[in-house]
């Protein structure tokens, strides 16, 4: 079990980097936004992982049950906020992509670059 204790962190790093790669290496703007979503999700995983306590349960106190161990509520609160921030950014990014598609006719970054330098 010892070695598995860090597995969550490795998974978060892996997901983080997959998302990061998509953001910086892909040319398609929607793919970049998808990558950004993955990238942000990884951070959610980091926070939620650190809040877990062995043998704990979700921090909602049950009536009539004593001696319960609860996992940490604070990272969960932070991530609730961060999820909202993530979807807000995503919506804004998609709106911009729609406008780019309308005025450039493409959503590929390198083609937009070419079009900008031609004019």
């Amino acid at each position, binding site marked *: 079990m010892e070695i598995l204790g860090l597995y969550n962190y490795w998974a978060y790093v892996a997901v983080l980097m997959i998302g990061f790669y*998509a953001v910086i290496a892909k040319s398609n703007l929607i793919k970049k936004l998808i990558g950004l979503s993955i990238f942000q999700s990884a951070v959610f995983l980091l926070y*939620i992982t650190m809040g877990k*306590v062995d043998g704990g349960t979700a921090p909602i106190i049950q009536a009539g049950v004593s001696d319960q161990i*609860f996992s940490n509520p604070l990272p969960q609160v932070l991530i*609730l906020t961060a999820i909202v921030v993530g979807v807000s*950014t995503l919506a804004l990014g998609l709106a911009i992509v729609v406008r780019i598609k*309308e005025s450039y006719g493409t959503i590929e970054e390198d083609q937009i670059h070419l079009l900008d330098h031609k004019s």
Partner: protein
Amino acid sequence: MVTLFAVFLLTLLVLTAIAVVQTKNLFVAVMLMGIFSLLMATVFFILDAADVALTEAAVGAGISTMLFLATLALTGEHEKPSKKGPWISGLVVAITSLILIDATFEQPYLGDPMAPVQQHVAPWYLEMTPELMDFPNVVTAVLASFRGYDTLGEVFVVLTACIGVLFILSAGPGAPNPKSPRIPTAPSVGLRHHLIPRVVGKLLIPFIVLFGLYVQFHGEYSPGGGFQAGAIIAAGMILYALLEGEKQALKVLPQSVLIGMVVGGAMLYGMVGVVGMLMGGNFLDYSVLSSNPVSGQQIGILIIEIGVGLAVCGALLAIFHAFAARRSVG
């Protein structure tokens, strides 16, 4: 044992993320993102974050997918192969991940009860919530009261996104005419020709909204609260728009009403804070709202959760309609 479940699901999660990045079809990528969100939500649930799991499912698998699909309908779904060499990006990513992995070895193990996170601040919340708020969901207590200012900021992030999407999509060739908002014909048809989904869907909408209200008002006792409720109700109303067409949905809830909901929700939240200030407390101090601090907290949390629910529901719906009502150009 359950940790092993998490290990298994996390492995699937990483594989899904790789598949999302690999595929050249954006529609497929969006479908896989739906799976990604569901997996993520399940992992959250296993890691004891019930509220977060609910939000991730409603937002990640529900709202985000719909926004992506609405955009894909306007932009096309094929990704062209990039000429960019992946080497530099790969190098940056490799270095960053090595640094992060290296750091993990000095991090506390998953579930370590002696980790610093479990020692400071958090135990205070767990201990004081029953005493100060007198309800069981500590996450709601921290979200709405102890760190209520963050949540106020979060509501304004949603408001900003709503204003932004409406603003950005109010110009350009595909924009609906500002003088007479004309809704394009293609999306307005809805799924009228699909009898079975339409009947079943319409049957379920009231239950979805009802469930949303339950999540809203039961958020102090079980997972849920304003944000999750807003997202679920918005999803229900989006279902209505899918079935009956944009035109009908906008007739029931026009954009102006939705904007009113967003503004009203945000103001409601802010006003609770201001009232607290006028009654002699600090900003967002709910204890002064009633002669008994505990019931004052409960009243304050109830009202601000309603504000959050209204704002989030209105904002997500307005954003969805702004995408769906846009004409596809070219």
